[in-house]
């Protein structure tokens, strides 16, 4: 059942549990995430996916268990620390600031500055040029020519926003990219784009964790499927080892393993 590791995992979680009072949200999860792979994390509402991701991104500490990042044991105590390690999360709604421009969002928290005397000013020109180039690089053509990187993010479609957030993670050298329900509110055409950029991120050697309810999107994009139910990890399969129906059955509990 366990897949043969292609190399050393980027992230290894060992026996991770998390309790909230008497509620057990995650129970004894042990898994490994590898570079250049899309690992799908599937499960019904309340299966523990979100809690597991929040443990990985420093929102909650695990009650028990150990996380290894590139082989070294780590304690991820804040979202900032997760990001400094190279773990980037693209949330459905929380990724960008709608009233700010694409370029300002792209560099938010990592703005390049020019020093003039004792003062440091934003290097807006560099921000705009690099944003356009980076987005073009992962195949987002809309922003070539530096035209729309100054438009507010609020003017972009849902898929374009996800794409910008993915492009940002790739540009800043993330080694792990977590996509939380990236396609749930998107049209078919928009979904296609996001799945395409997910592939591009993977081809660039990132370890991608793809969380979704949509089995057909998962089947198309993922190389590995990890299924969670009632806080436990119940299955771990590689691409081709099971059908969409099998996966759905594992999620609902119709099939045990």
């Amino acid at each position: 059942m366990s897949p043969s590791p292609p190399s050393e995992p980027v992230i290894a979680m060992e026996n991770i549990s998390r309790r909230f009072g008497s509620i057990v949200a995650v129970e004894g999860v042990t898994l490994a995430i590898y570079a250049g792979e899309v690992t799908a994390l599937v499960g019904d509402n309340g299966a523990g996916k979100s809690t597991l991701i929040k443990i990985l991104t420093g929102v909650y500490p695990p009650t028990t268990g150990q996380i290894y990042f590139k082989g070294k044991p780590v304690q991820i105590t804040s979202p900032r620390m997760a990001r400094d390690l190279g773990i980037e999360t693209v949330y459905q709604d929380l990724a960008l600031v709608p009233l700010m421009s694409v370029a300002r969002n792209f560099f938010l928290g990592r703005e390049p500055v020019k020093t003039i005397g004792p003062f440091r000013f934003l290097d807006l020109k560099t921000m705009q040029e690099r944003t356009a180039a980076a987005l073009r690089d992962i195949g987002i053509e809309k922003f070539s020519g530096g035209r729309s990187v100054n438009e507010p993010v609020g003017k972009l479609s849902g898929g374009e926003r996800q794409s910008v957030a993915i492009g940002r993670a790739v540009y800043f050298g993330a080694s792990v990219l977590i996509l939380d329900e990236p396609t749930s509110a998107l049209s078919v055409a928009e979904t296609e784009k996001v799945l395409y950029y997910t592939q591009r991120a993977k081809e660039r050697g990132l370890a991608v964790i793809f969380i979704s309810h949509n089995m057909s999107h998962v089947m198309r994009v993922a190389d590995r499927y990890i299924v969670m139910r009632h806080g436990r990890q119940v299955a771990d399969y590689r691409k081709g080892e099971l059908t969409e129906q099998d996966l759905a059955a594992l999620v609902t509990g119709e099939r045990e393993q």
Partner: protein
Amino acid sequence: MSLLFERTRPLAFGSRIDRLRDLFLRSPIAGPLATLVVVFVLLSFVPNFLTLRSVAGIVNAATLTGFIAVGVTLLMIAGEFDLSVGSIMAMAGYVFGFHVVAGGSPWVGLLLALLVAGTMGLINGLILVRTGIPSFLITLGTQFMYTGVLWFYSRSQMLQITEDLPAFAILNGRITWLSTWLPGANFRTAFLWLVLLVIIMQVVLVRTRFGNHVFATGGNKAAAAAQGVLVHRIKLACFVISGMCAGLAGVMLFAQFKTVRIATGAGQELQAIAAAVVGGTLLSGGSGSIVGALIGVLLISMLRTGVVLTDIISADNFTAVVGVTIVGAAILNNVIRQRR
């Protein structure tokens, strides 16, 4: 202009008119500026309005609220409110006044007043980040608390001096050479300090990391935090700046009138919020400009003068006109925002 504002998209091609219209529409102060010009043109038909004396009067009456509006606007962009600015203004006036009355240096008095005002802002901010209670509610409370402290500190007395200090002339004195050269141009130095403060704060807002983080914190706090923006620290800094701006208003008031009362500054918080909104700042945070707030206070002051001069409604009832302006400006800003 390009230092103060960021182009949101490249200029449209086409005729000069198209380009000018485009340049105007995408500027964040398009709405406020248009309103200011329209109101000015309309009021210029009112007898005695279009005189240097009246214009100087409008500017002088707007100046003190202007200082408060700078800080309040920054705070609103960061997504928070400060209703205690009026009581901070009065407290700073007393701190400065007591120091000067005791024979201290007015410059040390200025620093002390700013220190106290900044601390009062910091207290507002600390309560916010520790409790998460809406700042509207917190500062509604601290407004009364600060006034309560002021009753003790002021010994329930109005403070007044007769002496004229050279520092008063620098802080908020008449520009005598100008009014002798141009009779009626009774401008005061505080307006120059206000313009300087507006320019500095506007540059800080659109051209620095701090400013970028202020927009992000007000626009989407969770997204900003996820990108490593220290949102609590940004909010604290904005509260301190807002307090210090109100403190400056208190010092400028004392330098002009040489008196301060406990009730000084009452109602200033709503005037400042009104100026911010008229100037294009969103009540919901994440968008706005300091230059817009300056236009906002000037517009409100201009309407006050207009109401007094036209004598259609009683001067005491001018707040009704302010009300109409706020709603009108909010609608106009919305229309322009959607066109952009």
